[in-house]
């Protein structure tokens, strides 16, 4: 059993198991050292692989911001749209391609601050999209400004003496708007996140997954949260899994407690179910 060849493998770039889903010609990617958007993105690619659904059946749409760059790294049909408009773009794409799995992969600023109106309407319509929101509490790309998800009293470059506004509770908002699948994980719950994404892929209707992630460069530094490692350790330490609780109780306090888990997983007629019921596809009549 001891016969083992220890090869000096560090130097030789082999093929990463996700290379078939990754635009390797664009690696290394843009995200900062220790920023865990990459981990969430990797988890999403793993979920695509584990879902056993034909890769060609997936498309990714993302908006503007650090996380928005994800569409540029996935080796599938992907679209990098304007700030906040990933969801309506994805709605149009989904209507044109009902059988495809459309993933909206974007950040908290893009999806909820500027794009909030589109988010709640897509959830209300229960259109079949999987929305993955990497929530790092700030606008990272532009250097760490306050967002609708920035914790109260947190420092950002536009709230130098502390954020005086209260952030959204994203799962509560998604559930209230009509999402049929809502879950939240921290990036360290990688395997739970991956299986949650697979569940979302197979879910009929609007599914939303929030991933609590660090922005060590801007938000982390301005609020003295320590190194990237400290942040994800801290988030994990204070996170507690409470599956099935009412999303309004999904507390998110980056100092004391982060409630994670799957909060909503119910069945409801989707946009297409109702469209076909009330507007049954008729045979094509001449113009």
């Amino acid at each position, binding site marked *: *059993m001891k016969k083992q060849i220890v090869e000096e493998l560090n*130097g030789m770039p*082999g093929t990463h198991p996700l290379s078939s889903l990754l635009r390797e010609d664009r*690696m290394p990617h843009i995200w900062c050292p220790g920023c865990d958007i990459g981990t969430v993105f990797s988890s999403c690619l793993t979920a695509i692989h584990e879902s056993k659904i034909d890769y060609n059946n997936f498309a990714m749409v993302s908006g503007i911001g650090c996380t928005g760059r994800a569409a540029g790294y996935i080796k599938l049909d992907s679209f990098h749209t304007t700030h906040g408009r990933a969801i309506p773009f994805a709605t149009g794409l989904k209507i044109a391609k009902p059988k495809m799995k459309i993933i909206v992969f974007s950040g908290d600023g893009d999806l909820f601050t500027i794009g909030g109106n589109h988010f709640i309407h897509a959830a209300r319509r229960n259109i079949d999209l999987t929305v993955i929101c990497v929530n790092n509490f700030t606008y990272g790309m532009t250097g760490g400004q306050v967002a609708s998800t920035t914790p109260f009293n947190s420092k950002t470059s536009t709230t130098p003496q502390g954020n005086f506004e209260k952030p959204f509770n994203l799962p509560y908002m998604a559930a209230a708007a009509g999402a049929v699948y809502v879950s939240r994980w921290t990036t360290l719950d990688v*395997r739970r996140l991956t299986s949650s994404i697979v569940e979302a892929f197979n879910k009929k209707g609007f599914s939303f997954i929030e991933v609590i992630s660090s922005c060590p460069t801007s938000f982390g530094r301005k609020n003295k949260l320590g190194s*990237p490692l400290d942040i994800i350790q801290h988030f994990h330490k204070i996170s507690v899994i409470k599956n099935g609780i009412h999303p309004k109780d999904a507390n998110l306090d980056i100092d004391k407690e982060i409630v994670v888990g799957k909060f909503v997983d119910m069945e409801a007629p989707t946009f297409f179910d109702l469209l076909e019921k009330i507007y049954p596809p008729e045979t094509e009549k001449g113009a």
Partner: protein
Amino acid sequence: MKYWRKPLDYEDIKIPRGKVSIIEDRCKGCSFCVEYCPRDVLEMSEHFNKKGYHTPYVRKPEDCVNCNFCEVICPEFAIYVEKMGE
């Protein structure tokens, strides 16, 4: 591995073996993999990659049990593990 007492099926359990590979130039030295490897197989090295980041190195390859947590936690797609039998 320290056990409180020897598990009854100690002999039958086959411990998987994994081979860790590092795509060095993608690594940005965040050390998540080193921190979260359950068997402390990895360690940050003094070596610099092309971009000037310290990369991990496989300190105890024989201890890797192919749990591939380093692979899934890595934000840079810079490390992966292949099964090597038991």
